[in-house]
Structure formats: structure tokens, C-alpha cells
């Protein structure tokens, strides 16, 4: 499997990554090489094999339905790039 520069731009868009124009061609080459290596997997017969969910076959623990988290909004918002009145600021999304 190889990726064209156009496909790389599409994947970058899906991943919300802005690429510089000079990055696209080298990325297309490198990602194609990686996918080429990964393509070995297609030849493996996995009929009847269950995909692995967890090596120890554990189930998720349940805990009592009690409040355990403290409200630490100020501490968490202190590391945000832009906040106001306890809210996170982003560019206007509704005109």
C-alpha cells in the first residue's frame, strides 16, 4: 500500500494536522514505506483467531457510585492557553 501526496493531505486533515507544503512529499514516501512493512500482516492466516482485547482477559472493575473527585477547576484551568469566567476560550464557531 502506498500513499499519494493527495492521500497524505486527506489523512492530515482527518487528524487535524496542518502540514507545510514541503512536508507532504517526504511524508508520502515515509508513510508508504511504513505501510509497505505493515503489509506483511495481510498474508497471515487469521481465520478463526479472536482479536486480542486484553492479555490477561480481565473485565472492567466496578466501584461504588460515590463522588471521589474534588473540584479542581482552577488548578486545571491555570494550564489552559485562554480562559474567562471559568470557561475555555476558542475562536467563534457560530457567526
Amino acid at each position, binding site marked *: 500500500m502506498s500513499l499519494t501526496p493527495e492521500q497524505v493531505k486527506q489523512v492530515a486533515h482527518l487528524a487535524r494536522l496542518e502540514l507545510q507544503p514541503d512536508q507532504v512529499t517526504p511524508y508520502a514516501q515515509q508513510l508508504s514505506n511504513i505501510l509497505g512493512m505493515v503489509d506483511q500482516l495481510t498474508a497471515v492466516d487469521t481465520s478463526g483467531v479472536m482479536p486480542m482485547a486484553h492479555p490477561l482477559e480481565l473485565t472492567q472493575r466496578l466501584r461504588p457510585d460515590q463522588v471521589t473527585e474534588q473540584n479542581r477547576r482552577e488548578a486545571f484551568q491555570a494550564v*489552559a492557553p485562554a480562559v474567562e469566567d471559568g470557561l475555555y476560550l*476558542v475562536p467563534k464557531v457560530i457567526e
Partner: protein
Amino acid sequence: MTDLHRLSIRALAEGLRARTFSSRELTRHFLDRIAAHDPALNSFITVTAEQALAQADLADARLTAGNAAALTGIPLAQKDIFCAEGVRTSCASRMLDSFVAPYDATIVRKLHAQDGEGAVMLGKCNMDEFAMGSSNETSWYGPVKNPWDVTRVPGGSSGGSVAAVAAGLAPAATATDTGGSIRQPAALTNLTGIKPTYGRVSRYGMIAFASSLDQAGVVARSAEDSAYVLQAMSGFDPLDSTSIERPVDDYVGGLGRSIKGLRIGLPKEYFAEGLAPSSRELVMAAVRKLEELGAVISEVSLPNSPLSVPTYYVVAPAEASSNLARLDGVRYGHRAEGVKNLEDLYKRSRGEGFGAEVQRRIMIGTYVLSHGYYDAYYLQAQKVRTLIYEDFKRAFKDVDVILGPTATDVAFKLGSKTDDPVSMYLNDIYTIAANLAGIPAMSLPCGFVDGLPVGLQLMGNYFEESRLLNVAHQYQQATVWHTQMPVAFA
């Protein structure tokens, strides 16, 4: 007191208790060594000198009061992937360059809090960006140099942790291992490093790369030192949903057991083409030494192990692309200036904040999870992962421990593989399978080729950390490889 950096953790703990030196003196010694030697290595991103000395004073008070824990007052370094409250926690990324963690990772709390071990934190170690790399060259803060030859890589992603410990800038350091990031750098710097069973050490506050593979561990100068630190890190944590509720074995207490009759399997696939003949010779010499100590050697087969690298490069990027989606310039991390709209904010913050290797893995992950490709890539990889797991299950019916090389060769030159991701990925060919299966594995020194260290790898069944440390310790009682330090930093 010029040799404090050559003492074992046990000797340091004894010295602290006997008042031969104080924790403040010990901490000062390592801070001075960091100041003198780290410019040549770049192993630390942040040195927390003031905080370390304050912790040392608290430790000295605790030692005086007689309520010290095993590691009280012992300086340690933390990989900069673990959140430490009030300290910049960057994950070696521009994205988190300004991120001051608002809480402690569970292992940071266990190791450093006063109601925990009360060990001293010297600082935060350099690493590959978001732990993605095998050479520590993807860090936003620049590459780390190998203390054995500063023109070579220390391995990755825990390159800063190993360089610091190998050069005697810290007695031991925490590290993480998603595909070999503890074991491969330990091998390349003459250290002992252990990645425990998945779920044995809490992942809470450890910045996620590939959640089904990530596991925290330790790098140190011996199995005994590793046992002390791992003992303090391990155990159930309700804050980590994949943490295992199961008592922790006595790692230190188990070191002295004889290995007479221990069944060691050599996987033939790990000794095939691709392994440097000089490394093979040293690993086989170690096998003979273990045989002298009473181990019984046989050949085993892990037929699907050649598939571990391609499987990993589907599963790990898929999980990484999901985990790193949270870094969008809104709640924390890098935010681009002068953006047009919300989408532009996301794209430019992520385009500027992530380096090339992280971007490649995010794109691979996004691609393999996208509509129409999911079954062919991700689901198939998870099925092959089951086959790899079954290989181990079969092998552990016949043997107690599996032994092979950790890396294909000694440390390579800085810059020699940075343009070729696939050749870089093949560095982890012997280490990835243990992560895919979730079993514990470790690396320990077994000799030198032209002055550069070679490591051997031990893999054990689930929760067999104690046995691995025991085997490594018995080997180290009979050999001197692990006692060697790089001359320039001795």
C-alpha cells in the same frame, strides 16, 4: 565522599541510616554531577534542584526520627512522561513545553511523597517526543548522547533516563516501555532495566502513548537496585482502570534464590539473521554462564515473532492517534497564534506542536482506523497479536524464562537512521513482542564490543518479575559487566 555515585541503592540506604552522609549531601553530590556532566549528555529536560534539596531535608528528618522507608532520601530521576505536580511535564514535546502538571502520577506520589517512600526527585529526564522513538533523537529539547560514546545514541525512548544513570548522574530512574523503550536503551548503555507485566505498575499520570502496551518500569545499574525501585512503584491503583488487584511479590527478598534447575528457552527466531555476530557471541557466553549456575538450556520457537514489528506499527499508532487527539490547543498545551477559526486552531496548534515522528504516527494511526481500512489493518493486527501471545503461552509450558538478545547491535551513530523510519523501527524487533503479549521482560549487561555495551533480554510469564530479577541478580553475582562505568563519567 567522591564515590557516592558508584554506590548501590542498598549501600546508599545503609549510609543514610548510619549517618555516614545525609540525604542533603547525597542530593548535592548528584546535583553537582548533573551540573558538571549533563551539558555533554542532555539527559535532563528539567532539574528540580531547590525542590530536591527541600525533599532531602525532609528525608533527613525522617531518617533521624527513625520512620524512613526503603528509599527515603535516595535521589532518583523521573522520565518526563510522568506528571509531577508543580513541575513542567513536557513529554519532550513542544506541545507540552509550558505544561506544569496540576497533579502527581501515582508512581511519583508513591516514590516521592512524604507518606510514600520519600525519595528525592532530582529532575525530569529527556526522552523521545511522546516516547515515540528508539534513539532519543525526536525530543523537542534535542538528542541525548550515549555516555559510552557521545557521538552515538543512547537508545530510546527512555534515552535521558539511561544516560543519566549510566553516567552516574542519578542512582536509578523511572522509564516507560511501549515497544522496548526501557530495555533497548538499557542494553545500549550497560544498564539493567525492567518492564513489568502490563497492569503491575499504575499508568495514572503517565502521559499515554499506546494504552494497551504502555508500562512503567525502572532503569538502574543492577538487578538489585531495580528490585528496590520496582518494589516501591508496583501495586494496585484504583485510579488506573487496567491496574491489577494482586499482591506484589518480595522482589528484593527473592534475589538470593539459587537458579539451579531453572529452565531457560532460547527462541531460535531471536538468533536468526539480523543479529550482529559479535552480540550473538556475548549473549551465548552469558547463556553458558547461566548453565554453569545450574540453569537448563533448551531451544524454543516463537514462530510469529517476525510479525511483531508490523503488528506494533498498526496497534501503537492507532492508539496514539486516539490518545493524542486531546492535544488540541484548548485546555492545555501549545496554541497557535492568529488563527482564523476553530479548525485552524486545532490544525495549526497540532502542526506546530508535534514533531515529525509524532505526526507520522498520528497519520498512520488515523489511516489504519479510517473507514474501509479498519478490518484490513487494525482488526488483522489485533488477531496477529493473539497469535504472538499464544506463542508465548506455548513456550512457557516448557520453560521458565525466555532468553535472547535485547537489540540487534551496539549503539548506532547519532543521525544515522533519522531519515529512514522503517530501519529505526527494526531496532525494536526483539522487544516488541513482550509488550504485545503483556508479559514482563528485562535487559541486563552481558559484555562489550569495542567498548560499547551489549545487553541480553529475559522474558517471563505473567507476574514473574521476581523470577526475572532473581535470574539477573544471580548472573550479576557471577559477572562484572554491570559494574563497568564509562570512563569519561566515572
